[in-house]
Structures are given as C-alpha cells and as structure tokens.
C-alpha cells in the first residue's frame, strides 16, 4: 500500500482517462493528467484504500428533462407542482438565483422569474433511476438505495475483480452514467456511510470527494452539528441550549456524559462526531413506505373537498404498490395545516392491501376525525408494513363486499393496462366535490357502519 498515513506522499488517478498517477509527495501533485491533459485529477493519500461510496445524481429530475429537451439546457429549470406546490428539483442554473429544492413555488418564481417550470414525471424518473441502479449493481452487489437517485455502495473486495481500486471503479461508473444515460452524478468516497454521504455533497455537481481516516476528525470538527445524520431542527435546538453547535465540541466530550445527557442520541453523537459509523451497506434495506401527497392551490377545510383530493393520491399509491409487488398493512394520513403544522394519523388494516379503494376508505376514516373546520394546505396518504402482493386483500368473512371491490379494481387495472391510465376512472375522480358547509363537515354525517344514535334509553 502507499505510504499514506504520514501525509507526506499521496496517490491519485485521472477521473477522465482513469490513468494512475504515481505516488508522489503532496506538494508535487500535477494539475493535469500527464496522459490526457484533463484537469480532473484526483489525489488523496488514502484514495485506493477506501471502500464505501455514496452516489448522488445531480439535480436528478431537472437533468433528465434537460437531457430529453436540449433546448432547456442553458436555461433555468424548476421541476415542481402548481404555484402552491414546492420545488422538487431545480437545475444548477436556477440555483444561482437562489432557488432551492423544497422551497415554496411562489418564492422560487419570484427569485427566478425566467425559469421554465415543469411538473414532475415520476414514471420517467423512476425508469432512469432504475437504469442507474442497475449500473451500480454491475460494480458490486452491495448497493443500498436511499431513494430513486442516490445509493450507498460497498466496494470492499472488488479491487481484484475489476482490477481497479474502488475509487477508480466509481469514477469509471460516473463516466459511464454520463455517457450512457446522459446525466451526471456526484461521488463521495470514505470508509463508512456517514462520511461517504457527507463527501458526495462537498463537490456537487459532477464531483468526487474523498474523506480519509486521517483527516476525518479534523474535518468534522469544523462542521455544524446539523451535519450529523438524525440531528434535525429539534435535535440541534436541544444541543444549542447546551451551547453545542459544532461537531468539534462533541469530540471533546466523553461518552458517559453524552449518553447521560442525550440518551440513545448521545451515543450516536459520540461515535459519529468521531467519524465512526458501524452501519453496513445493507442491500436488504427494503422500501419502508410508499406515499403520495399534494399541496392545494388554496387551503381546504371542507371534508368532501379533502376526500376529493385524497382519491387520486390513493390511486397513485396503489399503482406503485402493485408495480412494486407490495401490499401495505398500515395506512398513514398526513395533513399540513394552513399554519404549517403537520398532522399524522395512522391505522392498521385487518389484512395487507394494494387496493386504492381500501387505502381510500381507511384514509377517509382518518381524515374524518381531523376534519373539524381546520384549514389544510396539504394532504398525503401512504402505506407501510409491507407484505408480498400474494397476501394482499384476502377474502374477509367480516366484509362481504371486499371481494367485489377487489375484482372491480382488478378489472379497472386490466383496462388501464390496455388503454392507458385515464381510460377508465371512478365517478369520484370526476365529480366536482361539493362543499358540505362553510368549511365544516356535515355534523350529521357518521362513520360508515354506524347506525342511528340511540334514542330509546
């Protein structure tokens, strides 16, 4: 191995031609590849010793749209829903104007009025995402997808196989994704998942960053605690109360003190702050939930109108369940109030389902309890606790109608497979929802299956 640890020598290779660069002293690093003259030379003392990669596609949705319509290439592009929605992805040109993902659409439009705005085409992105994943799996079977456009790869033991170090393999993969799929990715390389993920974000887009064992601790010391996975707003506030904002401060603290103060989180802080992360790249990290949500153009309080928004989401989730061969036994309902408070409710079903109708019924029941005049800006429905599709929607002695609903939906799916998604719809997708009152649900409406209130006693 190279003499990396003393920090005086370094190794490297060219990201474009793949050519190895000689092990040399740090200060003698070449600015360009001696063979192909590319400036994209990568040096790091531990470059050929690190095994864990994180690949993240650059502005994924926007990159795909630009690939498919070259006229968009040099213009700012925002992918997101309606003018009340949020930015799903924006290209790097739009980012120069300050647009960020998850930013409300109206704000994005204000910052970058000349941007082209497109609604997301999830089916297309999923197809491309799977192509990228397939290419990753050619490199190593140990691919842990985090989402449609990013994944961890464990390349341990692949040096012999590919006759290249993990770093070279990743650089080669990035190049091939560019050539064959037409989008760019950024790569983070380190010795664990925590640091690999941080690294991939350092040099975006089209980047390749390395965090080695030698500098991990010093590197982290300068970073805010929010860089630590699992430390969100609440965790950061809790730490800030104790005067801790930088990871370096955590590195000064002892494990018992951290554990005593923050419990389980404290232990994680202790190890991650020191750049230690024992989690392995887990190919079996399966899909945990499938969901869909929508932000309304105008806030809604009316139960009937909310259920009208709920139905297409159920159809979307159901279609994805069926495509993934999954059936969920838990249904989650998500609502966001006009005041941006998130309300989450969930219910466990008697049996796993993949049916839009069953998701809808469960979701509507949850919604009914939350529909009390509150104005909502967003509704979402999701399902989890997955079982194989073969276990979905069994005959139910307590629900004689269930089988009929299952057959009806199967018949509709068959028509759609043949004639297209919108070839057949339920009446409820068309009917203009009639408000049932001034923002209130009908006080007389009752849960299905209930009978007249008791009056005799």
């Amino acid at each position: 191995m190279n003499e990396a640890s003393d920090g005086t020598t370094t190794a490297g290779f060219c990201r474009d031609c793949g050519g190895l660069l000689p092990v040399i002293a740090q200060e003698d690093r070449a600015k360009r590849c001696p063979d192909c003259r590319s400036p994209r030379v990568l040096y790091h003392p531990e470059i050929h010793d690190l095994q864990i990669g994180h690949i993240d596609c650059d502005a994924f949705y926007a990159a795909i749209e630009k690939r498919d319509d070259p006229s968009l290439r040099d213009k700012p592009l925002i992918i997101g829903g309606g003018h009340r929605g949020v930015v799903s992805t924006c290209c790097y040109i739009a980012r120069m104007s300050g647009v960020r993902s998850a930013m409300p659409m109206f704000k994005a439009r204000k910052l970058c009025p000349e941007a082209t705005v497109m609604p997301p085409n999830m089916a297309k992105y999923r197809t491309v995402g799977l192509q990228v994943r397939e290419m990753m799996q050619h490199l190593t079977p140990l691919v842990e997808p985090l989402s449609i456009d990013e994944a961890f790869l464990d390349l341990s033991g692949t040096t012999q196989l590919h006759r290249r170090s993990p770093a070279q393999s990743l650089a080669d993969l990035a190049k091939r994704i560019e050539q064959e799929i037409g989008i760019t990715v950024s790569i983070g390389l380190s010795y664990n998942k925590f640091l690999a993920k941080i690294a991939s974000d350092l040099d975006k887009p089209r980047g390749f960053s390395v965090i080695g064992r030698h500098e991990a601790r010093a590197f982290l010391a300068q970073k805010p605690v929010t860089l630590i996975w699992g430390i969100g707003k609440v965790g950061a506030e809790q730490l800030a109360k104790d005067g801790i904002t930088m990871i370096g401060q955590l590195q000064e603290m002892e494990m018992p003190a951290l554990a005593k103060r923050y419990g389980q989180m404290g232990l994680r802080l202790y190890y991650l702050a020191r750049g230690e992360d024992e989690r392995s790249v887990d190919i079996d990290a399966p899909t945990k939930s499938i969901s869909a949500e929508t932000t309304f153009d105008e806030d809604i309080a009316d139960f009937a109108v909310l259920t009208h928004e709920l139905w297409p989401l159920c159809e979307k989730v159901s279609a994805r369940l069926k495509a993934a061969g999954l059936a969920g036994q838990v249904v989650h309902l998500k609502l966001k109030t006009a005041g941006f408070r998130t309300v989450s409710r969930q219910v466990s079903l008697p049996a796993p389902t993949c049916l839009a109708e069953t998701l809808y019924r469960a979701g509507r029941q949850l919604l009914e309890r939350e529909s009390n005049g509150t104005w909502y800006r967003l509704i979402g429905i999701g399902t989890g606790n997955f079982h194989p599709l073969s276990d979905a929607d069994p005959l139910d002695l307590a629900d004689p109608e269930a089988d009929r609903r299952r057959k009806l939906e199967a018949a509709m799916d068959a028509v759609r497979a043949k004639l297209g998604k919108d070839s057949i719809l339920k009446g409820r997708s068309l009917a203009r929802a009639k408000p049932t009152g001034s923002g209130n649900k009908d006080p007389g409406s009752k849960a299905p299956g209930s009978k007249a209130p008791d009056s005799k006693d």
Partner: protein
Amino acid sequence: MKLTIERTALLRSLAHVQSVVERRNTIPILSNVLVEAKGDRLSLTATDMDLAIVEQTAASVVSPGAATVPAHTMYDIVRKLPDGAEVQMELATDGAQVALKAGRSRFTLATLPKEDFPATAASDLPHRFPLSAVDLRGLIDRTKFAISTEETRYYLNGIYLHAFSAGKQMALRAVATDGHRLARVEMPLPEGAENIPGVIVPRKMVNEIRKLIEEVDGMVEVSLSDSRIRFAFNDIVLTSKLIDGSFPDYQRVIPTGNDKILEVDRRSFRDAVDRVSTISSEKSRAVKLSLRPSVATLSATSAENGTAVEELEVKYDGAPLDIGFNSKYLLDVADQIDGDGLQLVLADSVAPTLVRDLADAMSLYVLMPMRV
C-alpha cells in the same frame, strides 16, 4: 349504615361484582363498589360506565344506609377472612370511612361520596324474554372464540344476537366473526323475542355473564333495547351498553355451493392437527390438508423446524384437494364440537369452508383457508 353478614355470602357477591371493576381507572369512583343496606338485604353495585352489575344478598341490617368503598381492597380483605366469620360493616357518622370487623380483625376503608357513583340506568327495556341458562351458555360458548379483538372494526368486538326467520321457523341466532372464522349458533326463538332488534353484545358483557351463569341451572331473563341489554337471574342484574354499529351481512359469506364433503372423527382430527401443528411456524401456524378418497393427510413444514405428516382415515369421495388452514382456527372450531363427527364442506383451496357438528344441526362454522 350498619349491618352484619356471613363472610361466605359476602365473598360470593363481592367476587361477582368486583370482576366488573377495571384494575386501572382514571375516574376514582369507578374503582369503588356501592354498598347499600335496606330491609334485610345488602346490595352491591359496580360499573365501568358501560357495564353495570347489581347483586343482592341477605344480611341483618341494623341501620340502613349506603357508601362506596374500594372494590378490590374490600374483596381482598373478605377473601382473607377466616371461613365462617361474621362480618360487621359500619359507616362512620361523618361518612368518610367504613369500618369492617370480623373476629379480632378491624379495617377501616376510605369512602367516596355515594352521590358521585354513576346511577345505573333503571329504565325499562322494551323487549323481554326468558332464556334458560343452559341455552345461553350454548350460544356463548360456541361463538365467543370467534369474537374479533381488532379495534378498528369495533362492530366485530362482540356477539351479534338477533331473531332470524326462515319461512315459518323462527330462531334466535348468535354470530361472531373476526374475518378469518365465523361461528353461527341458533336455537328456537324464545317467546317474547319475536321483535327484538339485532344487537351486538360487547365482549366484556359476554365474558361476565358467562362466568356468572357457570353454575346456574334456572332461567335468565333477557331484556333489550336498541342500546342496552340486561340479564337478570337469581339476585343478579347485569346491564350493558351494546356496540353501536352494524354487524356485517354474514349470510353472504356462508358458502352454499360447496360440494366436497369430508367427515372425520372429531377427537382424532383434533389431536392430529394439534400434533402436526407443533412444526408449523409460530407466525403462520399453517397446516395443510391433502384430501384423497378415504384418506386425509395433514402436514406442516417450517424452514426452521422441519416437517410433520399424519394420515387420517376419513369419509371422503370428492375430487382430490389440497387446502391450508391456520391450525389454531381448526383447533378452536374442533373444540366447539360436542359430537363425535366433524364435517368439513369444501369447494376449493381458496374458498371459505363450512364446518359442522354432525350431532348438532344448530351450529355452523366458516373458516377461511390460507395459502400453503
């Protein structure tokens, strides 16, 4: 209030009423039993707001009155008193304590104001009919096992009791289901029950009444409204709210076209299922039944445990059929059957299967198969 009562009588009544009292109560008064002395009777009342029990027993009342005392504490005290003891109860003049004396033991129990005790609905229930304790036991015992514990479908958390007419025949039917199995038991309709509404009797009421009639052999008077049911017998009155919901149209899930009939000795079938299921995985508990003329092969396989196979001599001449069941459900159903003969009526490996007791035409069970 002051009275004396024989320990055995007091203990028996207390055992009955304290069983209704929940162990954990957010409303303190619901942990108490209401004790009332009047004439030559002691009356004990307990409630959880949904279910109320009143039981009367003979006592020598020195001065009438009423108080509420912690039910479980009082029960534990009386339980530990020596057999044959005379128990004296007296409410202190300030009403804050009840003194309990027996032999050389003395206890004082804190009371809560009797005015705070929830009034039991004394209202008259419009429907009333007599039912023998034996029949009531029969209805409960053969359906109770199928009551669902699933909270989202609360209308399955009880026994559906209703009058059913097929032509001229009128029957009182009890039905319970959890979606995987269903039990339906009927008996000739008692006089006075012709116009009763269909009601769902909650599980707690079912359990309490079943315990209380264990050794009763007389008649039980049943009273009903849309929202309440009451059982009265001997000196006990048990009243419960009903589940407010509609029970599914169960008739539609009872198969009528099944044509493959299997008859088997109940005992040997039950024991074979029990043996084979030892191997079934804890999670699925699946047992496979392979039916061939005159032979049924029971089998189970599990990746962790191994395999089990057992052959049974049966009466069967239908087409060969392989079908899987949850072994627990098979055992539960087999346990309901009193006669020697158990009959399965099947269609195919995915359709609901009927189970009958060859010695009892009044009960019927439906089981959903599972994939094996």
